[in-house]
């Protein structure tokens, strides 16, 4: 399978925050790549944090949620903050439906808000 370059995440860096735009229907293998990509990026760029923009995500199942969570945990262990942005109502209700534990996640409203949260003291 040659999908190594096909997963649709695009990113840019502002104020030492990496904004990862995640689009489409991500399969679990692609989520694995996303994990590698974000963690590698975080190390290389001397980032302060990562904003995960989920607005383009059509469907989020529990395996995909688990990977996103693991990304946040890995980043935290590297001393980086992460914020989730752009959770659409339909995705929010699936999260509620599968009883996902979202209490310790940092959710932001927009990029500005995310940059501020990530830049703030712990």
């Amino acid at each position, binding site marked *: *399978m040659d*999908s190594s370059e096909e997963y649709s995440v695009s990113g840019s860096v502002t104020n030492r925050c990496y904004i990862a735009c995640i689009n*489409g*229907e*991500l*399969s*679990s*293998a*692609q989520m694995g790549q996303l994990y590698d990509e974000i963690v590698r990026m975080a190390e290389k760029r001397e980032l302060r944090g990562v904003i995960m923009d989920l607005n383009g995500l*059509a*469907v*989020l*199942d*529990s*395996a*995909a*949620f*688990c990977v996103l*969570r693991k990304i946040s945990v890995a980043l935290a262990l590297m001393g980086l903050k992460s914020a989730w942005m752009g959770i659409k*109502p*339909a*995705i929010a*209700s*699936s999260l509620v*439906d*599968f*009883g*996902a534990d979202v209490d310790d996640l940092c959710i932001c409203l927009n990029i500005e808000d995310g940059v501020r949260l990530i830049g703030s003291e712990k």
Partner: protein
Amino acid sequence: MTRYCKNDRVLEASVKLLESSTFELNEENDQATAVFMTREMAKNAGFSLADEVMVATAVSELATNILRYASSGSVRVTVIQRGDERTGIEILAEDKGRGIRDLKLAMQDNYSTAESLGLGLPSVERIMDEFEIESDFGQGTRIRARRWL
């Protein structure tokens, strides 16, 4: 063979099948196709955006499980109708993988043999109005689930 049903109710037999698509699952991209097509079918059947996403999420969960635990299998999505004309969507997920030894356990929140969250199957049960899972350990797994409009 063992079986588990939501609310101990087996699926009603008398439903009309209106339109159906089967998606073979062999690699990751097949899952994305199945999820995308399910959304289209649910939308065309009259489901609201929220319901459409939920049914697609259920397909995504089942497809993830098939690829992860059985390597391959299929998901069939059907627009169905009951005697009282109520429309719904039925998902049939089948594989000939290793099967599930203890269905009760697999249906519990947070039970996972893959260090994942273990929320897939229980969330599909919650999302769908009717849900039935059958498995022959060592032979495969078959799940049927319906959501009514």
